[in-house]
């Protein structure tokens, strides 16, 4: 039930309640009788439109779905023994492959950086052009759009779908409904199916899936994602955006009147009303109240109510309206990507202008460039070898028979390249009686150590000091370098000579 009075309707003259007392037509909208605890969903039957934004949306759907479905099948030669898949999350071996990049678990901060960049990009795009993410590239939008496309192909456009929903259950209706849900489920299974390929070698897993040899986890992941795709994209649709997604709330707090958005130009449209051919346009707005923008909206809103939380900025109402404007021979763009500030400016008789450079956009842009620069820099100077040093704490130190003190260190030598490498390890900064690498023996100076391709070699190193100064702990350095001297890692550690007070 809608308690708002219809817009632009002149209030009917209130009846008099008594002599000299006007009667209000207020309704107690929150009275126990009117209040409902549960609001059932009112189904939305978006009308298919044709136009620039619809075509952009088709294009984005094709691009994003192609990326999603095809990426796991791209091959990338990393040499023998390494996975040949361009994009692969190898959980079993703790590696993430992205074309020429290979990330180890220790470098998960690259993913943090990527997430920061994604978030800031979202803010920046939002501040410039509004919720393009919501309207064009969010998986929820893309799959909902795809599912509505399937629905339209099978059940017909808006009017036919409304008729079908109201129609009794005949064999024809059952056939349409069953085929619609079946095709939805096929797409949903494909979605989950594509997901698991990112975590496994795609051709191998495909063969396993078909022959029933894949692990239960893969089937469960496919079933789970098929279920969420089917229910979120097919059944819940706009409710996900309206009730479940946090972004509309965050976005509402972060937007401003200079951000582009799908805008009903009320400066041009109002006052609205039906128009008969031949009537003059003077003294009234361009909006003929045909409601085509409402019929086209997949979110079930009226864009003419202004900016609202539910609007995903897909622009389908623009296409619907432009079509009508052409037919009544008015200029297009009654609904357009515009700003609230421009509407106000035009109402005030000032020219419209777009302010893309604002403190907000400069800040987001700056952060984005900064994070991207840091990421690029660290990625280009990324070490292909690394060293971790962990000193034994239990026991903290060992007293030998002759009174010398020994500390033990566990070293992890990491080789992040695809070839076995000889790395040199040296211990400096302390006058040691002996440095013993277990399994290698007593060493002097730089020791050559072979680390296999893409592997971590763990070594225990014992450092013995004959007569250490017992007063304090000593500093020492472990240095790992490659034989051609191009790369080296220096790790500072301490030597504990006893129960240092």
């Amino acid at each position, binding site marked *: 039930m809608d308690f708002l009075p219809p817009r632009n309707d002149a209030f009917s003259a209130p009846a008099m309640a008594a002599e000299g007392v006007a009667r209000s037509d207020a309704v107690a909208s929150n009275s*126990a009788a009117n209040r409902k605890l549960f609001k059932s969903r009112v189904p939305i039957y978006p009308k298919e439109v044709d136009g620039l934004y619809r075509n952009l949306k088709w294009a984005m759907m094709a691009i994003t779905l192609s990326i999603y479905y095809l990426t796991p099948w791209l091959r990338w030669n990393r040499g023998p023994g390494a996975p040949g898949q361009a994009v692969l999350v190898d959980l079993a071996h703790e590696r993430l492959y992205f074309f020429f990049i290979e990330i180890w678990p220790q470098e998960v901060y690259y993913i943090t950086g990527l997430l920061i960049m994604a978030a800031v990009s979202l803010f920046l795009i939002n501040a410039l052009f509004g919720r393009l993410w919501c309207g064009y590239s969010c998986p929820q939008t893309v799959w909902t759009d795809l599912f509505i496309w399937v629905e339209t192909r099978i059940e017909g456009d808006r009017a036919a779908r409304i008729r079908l929903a109201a129609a009794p259950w005949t064999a024809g209706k059952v056939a349409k409904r069953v085929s619609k849900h079946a095709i939805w489920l096929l797409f949903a299974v494909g979605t989950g199916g594509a997901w698991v390929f990112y975590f496994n070698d795609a051709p191998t897993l495909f063969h396993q899936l078909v022959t029933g040899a894949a692990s239960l986890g893969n089937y469960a992941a496919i079933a789970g994602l098929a279920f969420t795709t089917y229910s979120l994209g097919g059944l819940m649709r706009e409710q996900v955006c309206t009730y479940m997604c946090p972004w509309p709330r965050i976005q509402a707090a972060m937007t401003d009147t200079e951000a582009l958005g799908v805008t009903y130009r009320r400066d041009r449209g109002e006052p609205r009303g039906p128009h008969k051919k031949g009537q003059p346009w003077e003294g009234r707005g361009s909006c003929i109240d045909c409601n085509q923008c409402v019929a086209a909206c997949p979110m079930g809103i009226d864009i003419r109510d202004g900016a609202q939380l539910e609007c995903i900025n897909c622009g389908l109402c623009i296409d619907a309206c432009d079509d009508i404007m052409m037919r009544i021979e008015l200029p297009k763009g009654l609904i357009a990507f515009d700003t609230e500030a421009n509407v106000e400016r035009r109402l005030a008789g000032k020219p419209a202008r777009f302010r893309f450079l604002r403190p907000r956009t400069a800040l987001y842009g700056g952060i984005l460039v900064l994070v991207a620069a840091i990421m690029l820099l660290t990625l280009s100077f990324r070490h292909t070898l690394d060293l971790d040093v962990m000193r034994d704490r239990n026991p903290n130190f*060992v007293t030998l*028979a002759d009174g010398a003190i*020994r500390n033990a260190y566990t070293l992890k030598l990491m080789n992040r390249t695809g070839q076995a490498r000889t790395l040199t390890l040296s211990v400096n900064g302390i006058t040691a009686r002996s440095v013993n690498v*277990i399994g290698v023996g007593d060493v002097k100076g730089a020791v050559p150590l072979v680390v296999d391709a893409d592997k971590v070699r763990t070594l225990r190193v014992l450092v013995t000091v004959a007569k250490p100064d017992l007063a304090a702990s000593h500093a020492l350095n472990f240095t790992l370098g490659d034989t051609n001297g191009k790369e080296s890692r220096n790790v500072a550690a301490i030597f504990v000579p006893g129960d240092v007070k």
Partner: protein
Amino acid sequence: MAKREVDEVSGTETTGHEWDGIKELDTPMPKWWLGLFYACIVWAIGYWVVYPAWPTLSGYTHGMLNHSQRDDVTANVAALKSARSVKEAALRDASLADIQRNPELQQFAMAAGKTLFGDNCAPCHGAGGQGARTYPNLNDDVWLWGGKLSDIQHTITVGIRSTSPDTRQSQMPAFGHDGMLKPAEIGDLAEYVVHLSGRPANAKAVRRATKLFADNCAMCHGADGKGNRSMGAPNLTDNEWLYGPNREDIADQITNGHGGEMPTWGGRLSPEEIKALAVYVHNLGGGE
């Protein structure tokens, strides 16, 4: 059913209970909650059919799946054993020296050894093998029975003063307790041992004890006090003291002849496990 009273403020039925004029509302359960509740009941019925559920006089209903967690554990343990079997076989067939030379095998032995050490050895020797008074430190370079891989393997297998017929056996006599030496003589000997380890000692006592040491101690500990590994006799000239470094500690040991006991692990751990443990202990830092 009689028509129930409806509260006019909230529009909800009341339960008919009233206290001091306050009536209890009978607010219906939320629909989603009721839905879940009924779904759980349906689920439970399915569960009874599929899984073991009800006790019977002689056992319990097994359910269609005939599921048993005990069988799961058995299967999991078997799967684990078969997954380990390749490396375990390699461990069994490799010599100790080979294991040390092969990084992959060594890593496997170290990982297995670490767990085994925590389960079996840490209660006495400490989590890091650092030992404690009367329990030897396994990190240092002092070994009563030898610190080579094979020595360690043998010690773990047979134990020390254990129930194994092949046990490593040594017995420090209780010189004082059994009346072989007088307290004064024991005091002199303790002074002598302190002197042996290079610490300042009473010269007169040391002189008096020289003959006592040769007569009573040198047989096992050697004339120079450097010990004898074949007998498990400790070196008395170094800095390591299993029963304490002070004069009183040494006198106590001469008087009472303490000797700890290490169990034999031969029957409890498999030969591969003992190999892995030997490699682990050797790699703690003291291995020879």
